[in-house]
Each structure stands twice: as C-alpha cells, then as structure tokens.
C-alpha cells in the first residue's frame, strides 16, 4: 500500500507519548492502543511517564523536543502547566495532539472521550429505567478534570429533573479506591436505605458501591449507573442479581489508537479536525448477559459501536485491529 510521507519510511519517524496518569486499567489499555497503532504504522514510539507530576510532565515535553521527535501526544495533564510547553513544541515544528487535556492551542487537535456524553448516556438510561423522580446517591471527588466535567452534566440533570433528590454525596480517592468507596457507601446506604439510584461516574467508584450494596443486602432496591468499563467491570455487572445495571464507556484502546492516527494525519499533512471525538457507548447489564460478553475483547467484537475504529481513519492508515 502507498503510504504518504513521512510514513513511506516509518522507521525514521519518532513520536513521543507524554503521560500524566499511568496507573490503572484505563491508562494501561490506552497505552496498549497507542502502541498497537504505532506498531501498525511502524514508527518509533517513546513513552515519557510523569506519574501524576504535572510539572514533570511539562519538562518531559521539553525533553521530547530535545530528543528530536516528530510528533507528541500529550495524554492528560493540567491546562495551566501544559499550555506553554505545548506551544514550545509547536514552535519547534513538532506536531502535537492532546488527549483529554485542553492546551488552548488552535494548532493542536483535541482527542476527547466526551465526559459529558458519558455522563449523559448513563443518566438518560437511569431516567429511562427509574422515571423522573428518585432518591439518588452520588459519588464525586472534586478537582479531577474528567470527574468535574461529568459533574457538570449531573448538575444539569438535577436541574432538568427536579424529582431527582440527591440525598448523599460522597467519594474518595484513597487507595485502593474501590475498597475505600465501599466503606463510605456502606455508611451511606445504612443511613439512607431508601436510595434507589447510585450515580458513580467512574468505574472504580461503581465497583466500590456495588460491594457495599451487596454487603448491605440492598442489591434489589438500588441500581448503579456508572462510566468506564473494564474486564473486571463486566464480570461485576454480570454477577447474578448485580445492582450495577449500566455504564457508559469509550474503549480506551480505541482512544489510544485514534490519538496516534490523528497525530499521523498531522504528520502526513492532513487535517484531523480541531477536535476528534471518540463517541461513547452505553453498555447495559442486559446487553452483556444477552450476548454473553465476558471481557473487553468480546465486548469490542459483539458491540461494534464500542470498537468504533473509523474515527481519524484515512484510507492509507493501517488498522491495528486486523
């Protein structure tokens, strides 16, 4: 197949992934997507990992510049710390894309898994299942960008449906998160046994809530709606009598692939668009049970919209999933 320059000689192309977050399944899956697409393209990928040190992440962009890479993917981070570093990279003639962090730069396409859409899909399902008036428990920790964006949607929903009564808000990022959230959720359901819906827009939160609901023996009266998915989540949702009924998710591996592809398009002189959105999918317990889906691979295979690979997919682009 004919590849546009510089991919006619991909061994010469060097790209860097500069990460803010790395620990956890989402980030591991994202990385595997990036690696898969980079391998399919045959380019040299360097991974710079700042382990949640925003200052270090900015330095790593400079380091990537010094390494002489052709393209940079910025994965998460803080607008304030990354804005200037990204600009320096652009000034150095390097192509840059950013995933899930707004670096306020028109030259840099934004790859997004729309957090607002994730929350909206899950909440629409909750309204569909439970009507417009219910008592809710909400799991939220402020200060984390994606959670803050999901929180905006939650507020919009509460404004739109006055019948939704948030009786408890809790949350923690103490590790292991699921265990700590389970402890909190146990207290909450003990104090408010009449909660009907738990909105836990992050799968670690949802896992914790599910453990608590099981332990409190309230699986029948509480339904959990969440965001994100992993193999372990699928198993938890499919447990007999599981209270976790739906989650909205994008496939992190696909997001990783899309990030590389958008960067590749830039390098090849094509225009991926200012914002590349990987649309989320609603995954319900019924879907999983109905199609007997056991892990992420089967999910991709059996829910094609989840495997959504056709974003940023020009004809010359090799598909890593084939």
């Amino acid at each position: 197949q004919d590849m546009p320059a510089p991919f006619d000689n991909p061994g010469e192309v060097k790209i860097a992934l500069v990460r803010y977050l790395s620990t956890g399944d989402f980030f591991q899956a994202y990385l595997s997507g990036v690696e898969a697409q980079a391998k399919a393209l045959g380019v040299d990928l360097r991974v710079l990992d700042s382990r949640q040190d925003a200052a270090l992440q900015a330095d790593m962009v400079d380091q990537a510049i010094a390494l002489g890479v052709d393209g940079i993917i910025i994965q998460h981070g803080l607008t304030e710390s990354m804005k200037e570093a990204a600009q320096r990279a652009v000034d150095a003639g390097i192509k840059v894309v950013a995933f899930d962090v707004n670096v306020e730069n028109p030259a840099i396409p934004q790859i997004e898994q729309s957090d607002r859409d994730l929350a909206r899909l899950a909440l629409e399902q909750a309204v569909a299942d439970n009507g417009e008036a219910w008592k809710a428990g909400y799991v939220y920790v402020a200060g984390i960008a994606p959670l803050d964006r999901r929180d905006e949607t939650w507020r919009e929903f509460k404004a739109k449906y006055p019948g939704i009564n948030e009786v408890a808000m809790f949350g923690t990022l103490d590790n292991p998160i699921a265990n700590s959230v389970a402890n909190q959720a146990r207290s909450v359901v003990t104090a408010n046994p009449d909660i009907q819906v738990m909105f836990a827009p992050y799968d670690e939160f949802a896992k914790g809530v599910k453990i608590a609901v099981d332990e409190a023996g309230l699986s029948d009266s509480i339904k959990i709606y969440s965001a994100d998915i992993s193999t372990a989540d699928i198993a938890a949702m499919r447990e007999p009598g599981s209270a976790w009924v739906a989650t909205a998710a994008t496939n992190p591996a696909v997001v990783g692939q899309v990030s590389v592809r958008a960067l590749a398009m830039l390098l090849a002189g094509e225009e991926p668009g200012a914002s590349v959105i990987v649309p989320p999918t609603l995954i319900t317990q019924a879907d999983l049970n109905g199609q007997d889906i056991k892990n992420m691979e089967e999910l991709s295979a059996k829910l094609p919209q989840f495997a959504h690979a056709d974003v940023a997919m020009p004809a010359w682009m090799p598909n890593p999933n084939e």
Partner: protein
Amino acid sequence: MADTAIRFGFLALLAGLIAFFSVSAPGFLSPQSAVFIFQSVAITGILALGVTATLVVGGFDLSIGSVATSSMMAAAYAMVVLEQNALVAVLFCLAIGALVGLVNGIIIVYMRVPDLLATLGMMFLLVGLQRIPTEGRSIAAGMTMPDGSTAAGTFSPAFLALGRHRFDFFLPNLLPVSVVVLLVLALLIWFFLEYTRFGRMMYAVGSNERAAELAGAPVKAYKIWAYVISGIFASIGGILLAARLGRGDIASGNNLLLDAVAAALIGFAVLGAAKPNAFGTAIGALFVGVLLQGLTMMNAPYYTQDFVKGAVLVVALVFTFALSNRSRR
C-alpha cells in the same frame, strides 16, 4: 485524677464519639452498623497489628501497604492466570508476606540498614514488582494477558467467600469473615505480646537491645520474627482485600500504609500505654472507623473527614501525652 484521665481519656473520647453519632446519625447504633465499622477497618487494622509487632522491637515497617497490594495481586494471579485453587492462592500470598518480612528483617538486622530506609526501599521495589507480571494491568477473570491471550482461571468461590461470607452471630448473616479474622488476629497478637515470653522479650529488645542481648536473648532472631509477623499480617490483609474486591486491583498510593500506621500510633495513647501495644492498635483502628463511619453517615464531605481525623488525632494525643508526661515529672 490526671492518671485516670490518661488511662481512660481516649476510651472516653471514643465513647463520646459513639454517643454523639448515635444521637445525630440515625442508624448508627445498630448491630449491622457496628459490624460494618469493624469490617471497614478490618484490613487496615490487620496491617496495623503487624506494624505494631515491628514497633515493639523498636523497628518500623513502611512496606506493609505494598506487601498487602502485592499479596492481593499474587492471589489474583495465582487463581486467574495460574488457575490454582483458593488454598494454593492463600498459601502463595502468605509465603510472599513471610518472605518479604524475612528479607526486610535480614537487611535490617544483618546488613544494619536503618529500618525506615530498608522498608522504604522494599516498598518501592514491591510497588514496581507487583505490576511486572501483568505489565500494569489489573487482574480479573477473563482478562487479556500482555501476550494477547485470555486468562482462563477465575476467582474460586471459596476464596471469594473470605470476602463475602458472613457468620451467624445473634443475628443471621452478621459477622463477615474479615471481622472474625481481625478479632482473632488481634487477640492472638495481644496475647502473644503480653502473655508469652517471646512477646515480653520483644518488648525488651525494643526497649534496650543491648541489655536484652547481654541477658542472653537472640535479639537478631526476635527482630527478624517481628518483620516476618508484619509481612504475614500484611499479606493476610491483602488476601482479604482481594477477596472483597474480587480482582487484583492495580492501585497507587499509600493510604493503606498511612491509615495502618495512624492506627498503630494512636494505640500509644490508649490506656496511657505510651508504647506500642496490640490492644491500643485495635482500638486505634476502631476509632478511625467510628469517626469515618459517623461522618459519612452525617453526609460530611470527604475532605472534612481527613481534617477531622487529623484534628481529633492531634488533640487526643496532645491530651494524653501532655498529661501523662506532666504526671510523671
């Protein structure tokens, strides 16, 4: 007078807290709630009991948190990837805990590396090590391995029962396994430290290593044993964690470590002991549990919980130590 305040001040504070929450948080005062408080502190409590053993011999173990998470990963790995049964998984974890403790002990005792340093290094090492087999993935049934294949094993029901089964106790289905384990271990280590000669000698070693050695105690062995105990307890905590979560969860952060250390250190203040002791540690863990449970039930935001936890800790300790030292002068 001051003496009574020192001995019972902390317990009175705990009682006061319980009374306060009972009044202001409906549902706080029920057997389920009580059991739940125990359950919420079971894992940190077990870790704290282990670290108490090292505190007793004058050491410190910063690696307990990572031993627990390593053991959790190991249990999941054994069952899901290696397709072993529950017993093998449990034994595997215990062996890891004991081994880590032994290595810690040997490094500290024979290589004379300061305890904080040795166990800090071990902590970093384990945090990295536990991620290598799966290249940073969490371990769950049906997971995809780094080589693309799918793991065939599952968490055995017997293992999951460790996290989910409840014993009947007055009420049916009341006591979770983890609480029973916590209570049994607390009793065991308390009895061991207070009423066996090994426990007494461990206190002697911690207080004056040289004197203990000159009196014929195998000081090195005692110290190593303390780290082995700490390692084993941490791995038990990890097993219970794996059983509760039903997967091997890649986690970062040191909350297990810090909460366990807090519990063990609060224990200093209980009954005016002013030294590490198993009873105090158990009460310390319980105290944190009561506080967090009560605050959550009163819908306090999570950040106020940390604040209140810190403030109560500081005040309680100032009270106990300032008083106990004054009276001793």
